[in-house]
């Protein structure tokens, strides 16, 4: 017990007051950073507030009693190693790899939270109260689950692992059984905190559950799942705060948990699906027959020449980007085409569906990287009423988010999903590599619409061709 006394922070001591105030300032920094995030103009100030908050939190923590002098050296070394890895990870990762980068980063955070929980258990047992033990158990399971889950998600996004969902009969049952075992052992630990051997079991359950959770998730559901993992990571940090009697961890964890939850809700609403449907529904495997309803009519394809001519002669063009644009890395070419068109006096806007891409806001980041001004990026609700006035819609690597069968075909897996009403425009051009159906495995009736022109080819190449067509025509007129 003499050892424990060293770690005791007397709540009335000056040291405790200083630490408390530093943590309070840190928490205020975090809240301000999120508040300033609500506007693109103040967002960078928000990062600064977050960084200050973090620095104060670290300073406060270093004042904690019981840290040895070797401890300080070890901390310095670990911080330097972490920073040495973190800086290139922050600066060198290309924007197209952002979803997997974020997933990977969730894995690191969860690993840290899980490890701290494990150490705290072994340090504190067997004198751990029921509430703390329950919190600690859940925290360890969550940390492990987010660790492997995020690694799986990153693997799928990086296409190291197959993107298609993997489902088998009884999958939900197996998943819940794993979770049930973990909960069972947490209960056992609450009853008897000295059951040290139960900890490895809940660790393994958490790790396995994380893998099982992501196996049935397909690429298009990744935005929701990444947001959910973000939320879990926050909750595990908050739980750790209860274990360590640390309010700052609770505040930061609660903010993070809420953020992830809100993003996940936005994503689910944008697909008209529930959480459980995303997690256990295995989109894409659902109804393969829905796409095989035979002939839906004929398609019309356009040459680059024709397409360029139509684009050049329109007044308002709306570009609808999708994951295909990210895959083809076509965002810079898209902006070049938009610039060329604007030189011809054509107005260009971008219609952004909330679930386009592989993470919330994916398309916005890619287009911002290509120097597209953010006021040209229009959300679905704001652009939909405008489509009847639009001359040409250029659909680029998007598919399910513009499929009109979501409105009326009840048998379709995407039925009820809010879509971009591109079919209301005067002309729709779809740039596509082939007639392969989209992620949901559904045939897109938009392609068979009489207003639709298919332009076949790789998104980046097609953009290049269209730029030369639009710019080239101008030259011939000038000469």
């Amino acid at each position: 017990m003499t050892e424990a006394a060293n770690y005791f922070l007397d709540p009335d001591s000056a040291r405790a007051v200083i630490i408390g105030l530093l943590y309070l300032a840190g928490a205020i920094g975090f809240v301000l950073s999120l508040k300033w995030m609500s506007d693109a103009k103040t967002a960078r100030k928000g990062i600064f507030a977050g960084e200050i908050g973090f620095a104060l939190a670290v300073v406060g923590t270093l004042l904690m009693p019981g840290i040895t002098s070797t401890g300080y050296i070890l901390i310095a070394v670990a911080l330097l190693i972490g920073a040495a890895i973190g800086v290139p990870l922050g600066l060198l990762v290309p924007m197209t790899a952002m979803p997997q980068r974020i997933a990977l980063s969730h894995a690191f955070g969860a690993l840290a939270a899980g490890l701290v929980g494990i150490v705290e258990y072994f340090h504190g047992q067997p004198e751990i109260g029921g509430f703390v033990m329950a919190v600690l158990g859940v925290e360890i399971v969550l940390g492990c689950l987010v660790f492997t889950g995020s690694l799986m998600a990153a693997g799928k996004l990086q296409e190291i692992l197959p993107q298609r969902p993997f489902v088998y009969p009884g999958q939900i049952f197996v998943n819940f059984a794993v979770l049930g075992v973990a909960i069972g052992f947490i209960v056992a630990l609450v009853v008897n905190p000295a059951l040290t051997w139960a900890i490895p079991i809940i660790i393994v359950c958490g790790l396995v559950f994380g893998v099982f959770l992501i196996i049935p998730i397909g690429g298009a559901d990744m935005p929701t799942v990444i947001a959910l993992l973000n939320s879990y990571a926050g909750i595990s940090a908050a739980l750790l705060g209860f274990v360590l009697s640390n309010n700052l961890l609770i505040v930061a964890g609660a903010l993070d948990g809420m953020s992830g939850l809100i993003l996940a809700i936005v994503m689910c609403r944008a697909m008209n699906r529930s959480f459980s449907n995303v997690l256990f529904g295995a989109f894409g495997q659902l109804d393969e027959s829905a796409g095989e309803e035979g002939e839906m009519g004929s398609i019309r394809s356009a040459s680059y020449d024709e397409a360029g001519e139509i684009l050049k002669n329109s007044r308002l063009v709306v570009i609808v980007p999708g994951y295909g644009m990210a895959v083809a890395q076509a965002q810079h070419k898209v902006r070049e085409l938009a610039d060329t068109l604007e030189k011809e006096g054509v107005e260009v806007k971008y219609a952004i569906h909330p679930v386009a891409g592989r993470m919330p806001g994916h398309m916005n980041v890619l287009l911002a990287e290509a120097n597209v001004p953010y006021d040209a990026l229009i959300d679905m609700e704001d652009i939909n009423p405008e489509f009847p006035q639009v001359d040409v819609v250029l659909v680029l690597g998007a598919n399910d988010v513009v499929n009109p069968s979501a409105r009326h075909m009840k048998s379709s897996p995407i039925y009820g999903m809010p879509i971009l009403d591109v079919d209301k425009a005067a002309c729709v051009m779809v740039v596509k590599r082939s007639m392969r159906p989209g992620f949901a495995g559904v045939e897109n009736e938009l392609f068979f619409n009489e207003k639709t022109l298919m332009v076949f080819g790789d998104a980046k190449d097609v953009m290049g061709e269209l730029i030369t067509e639009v710019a080239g025509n101008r030259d011939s007129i000038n000469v």
Partner: protein
Amino acid sequence: MNVSTSFIITGLFVFALAGFLGFETIRRVPRLLHTPLMALTNALSAISLVGSLVVLGREYSTYATILGFIAVVASTINVVGGFLITDKMLRMFKPREKIKKPAAAEAEAAS
């Protein structure tokens, strides 16, 4: 690790209020900035660095120190990388008027 009952109650207060505050604040973040928001909260979730630092610094045992070391490295990667990447992303978000000028300058430089 004796957490007093009064802290549990205070902690629940803090959790509930921070949760509501977070909900109301983050709800106002436009979809445009959802990816940077995610990167930022990702950096914030590495707040478990605070716990990791204590575990490492106190050297409870060899095992604890090793795990603590890994935890500090992992969460530092998250914090440093998270803030840098959020900033890198936000620097790209520019309104129309700001883009026109540099773009024009670039075109001149190129020609």
